[in-house]
């Protein structure tokens, strides 16, 4: 779950990481009032996109009526495909230098990793490898003060600024681990005289750990259909084609999409039904698929933890109770496959053994109609 910049900064402040003086405005009046109070400010639209600056979502002023006007233009408008609901009005910083500082998960190392650079700012991706400090953290000992001193040394910083960066790093790791973050990123970390201030905040919380953080704000990035799918325990992404797809497992769903493309068709969605497949869930998944008016439905089930007879029973039952108004192509193998196929055969649904056969058939149907 990605957090908005202002939420990230609230957490930074809680963890002792300096952020600019400022506040959130949901109306242009509030933006003007904050500017009145703070003076020279930056007004930043709060959307979950890294491109808001280039898209005109950030502006500078020291004039309350200018702030009112700018905020008024942003609030409620669409920016990078997202609606701006809030702006952050913050004191404009005197920027002497911009650093980059982040902690994220390095999957290959199986460890959190500090990423830091003295060349922070917009184009951090393009900074050459040798100017990026990369220090993996052993989770059994966590971030110790000496590691922050070493990181600062490798950044080539000394004196009070170095001490502050070290302190920020210690707090950043505390936040990273206590909040089950996958990413805490400050870009830029601004050096302003002897002060070190987080001018931006990118914080992503591990969705799988949200059960431990009921006190965190909830940010919803999904479309309505995706949200519905998520509530059902399904992984769902909308696509542009006309063949609705449902499979069990991210890999096999991807492979099914690849096959549709291979045979010249286009998938309407990515739907990974995962492990379970009760009747109610199957019905709701079908509802989701039908909501996009596909030309055909392609189901690809390789039973492992999912049992084919359960899937078949669910389908048979949905077909009987609800009806399915478009052609369904089902591929069904794995645990209890014979039972499953028999059940579907009994209700008049034909099944395939190989997924490429099923995919080819689905593309044929979609094209034919």
């Amino acid at each position, binding site marked *: 779950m990605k957090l908005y910049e202002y939420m990230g900064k609230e957490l930074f402040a809680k963890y002792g990481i300096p952020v600019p003086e400022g506040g959130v405005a949901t109306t242009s009046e509030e933006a003007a009032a904050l500017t009145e109070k703070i003076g020279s400010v930056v007004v930043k639209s709060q959307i979950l996109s*890294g491109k808001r600056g280039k898209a005109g979502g950030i502006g500078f002023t020291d004039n309350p009526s200018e702030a009112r006007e700018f905020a008024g233009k942003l609030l409620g408008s669409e920016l990078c495909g997202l609606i701006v609901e809030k702006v952050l009005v913050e004191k404009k910083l005197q920027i002497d230098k911009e650093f*980059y500082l*982040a*902690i*994220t*998960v*390095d*999957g*290959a190392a*199986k*460890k*959190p*990793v500090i*990423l830091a650079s003295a060349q922070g700012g917009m184009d*951090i*991706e393009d900074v050459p*490898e040798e100017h990026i400090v990369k220090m993996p953290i*052993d*989770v*059994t000992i966590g971030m110790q003060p000496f590691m922050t001193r070493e990181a600062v040394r490798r950044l080539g910083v000394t004196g009070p600024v170095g001490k502050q960066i070290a302190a920020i790093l210690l707090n950043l790791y505390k936040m990273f681990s206590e909040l*089950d973050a*996958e*990413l805490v*990123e400050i*870009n830029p970390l601004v050096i302003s005289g002897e002060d070190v201030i987080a001018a931006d905040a*990118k914080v*992503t919380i*591990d*969705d*799988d*750990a949200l*059960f*431990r953080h009921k006190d965190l704000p909830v940010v919803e990035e999904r479309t309505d259909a995706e949200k519905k799918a998520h509530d059902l325990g399904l992984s769902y992404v909308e696509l542009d084609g006309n063949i609705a797809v449902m*499979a*069990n*497992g*991210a*890999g*096999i769903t*991807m*492979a099914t999409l*690849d096959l*549709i*493309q*291979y045979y010249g068709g286009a*998938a309407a969605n*990515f739907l990974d039904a*995962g*492990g379970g497949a009760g009747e109610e869930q199957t019905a709701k998944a079908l509802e989701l698929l039908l909501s996009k008016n596909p030309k055909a439905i392609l189901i690809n089930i*390789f*039973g*492992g*933890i999912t049992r084919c007879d359960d899937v078949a029973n669910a389908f048979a039952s949905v077909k009987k109770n609800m009806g399915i108004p478009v052609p369904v192509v089902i591929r069904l*193998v*794995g*645990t209890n*496959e014979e039972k499953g196929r028999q059940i579907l055969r009994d209700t008049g649904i034909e099944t395939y053994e*190989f*997924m*490429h056969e099923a995919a080819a058939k689905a593309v044929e149907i979609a094209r034919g109609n």
Partner: protein
Amino acid sequence: MAIYLFDDTQVLVQGMTGNQGSFHTRQMVKYGTKIVAGVSPGKGGQELDGIPVYDTVAAATEKHRIDASILFIPAPFAKDAAFEAIEAGVKVLVMLPEHIPVQDAMAIMALAKSRGTIVVGPNTFGLVSSGKCKIGIMPNQFFVPGNIGVVSRSGTLCYEIVGNLTAAGYGTSTVVGLGGDRVVGLNFIDVLKEMEKDPETEAIVMVGEIGGSAEEEAAEFIKQNIKKPVIAYLAGKSAPPGKRMGHAGAIIERGKGTFDGKVKALNAAGVPVAELPFQVPEMIAKTLKK
């Protein structure tokens, strides 16, 4: 000989009395796996088809030699169960659960490393030494003995590939599901290393997918260290580029992770890449004929 799991590997099932635990315990027993004990807190003293259930792993190890353990435990409690197994000296730990918090996964991997425990998963179907010992939830019928080693990031996609191989008359030596999470125990390189040494394995199939850099790292390793033929299948060619984890993700991946990049890296290591599952047996046939 085999790798990881053997004829006489004694297996514990953590969470055996639950719905999934009991179903798959029976499936594993049917496959021939030596399940010697189960653990379900509060259920100590019960039995499942004659297999004794204990309250704690330590209690089970008092009565049985435990070589490996499999977890049927809900994600929020998986870290505790994994720690329990590792601290009890289990040498192979198979972690089925998905949605384990990544910080828990990192903690598990750190502990496992310090104790010398091999972790498979999380978010895996398990692993199998075909015909000898299956620890996982994959359908029994596809895993027949043979000389193809299969290692996969994805679950059902791996069944798919193995199913295609089986249908074409190729059995498997060892099949390992690495697990689909960002932080998992065994990776491609670990398994390739073992399969290279394993006399039962003649050719290796890697089942990968877009995202991450595991395939690229494996390619680099294969170039230097693997003499046996390796072929790969990759899913995700049709997928739009995924969302990345901030700048940090970009810094770590450094351009890796795309379908084309992975194909290029694998080809450069002499690994042909199948685009569709049914091509895999054909490529194996070609490779083994050489």
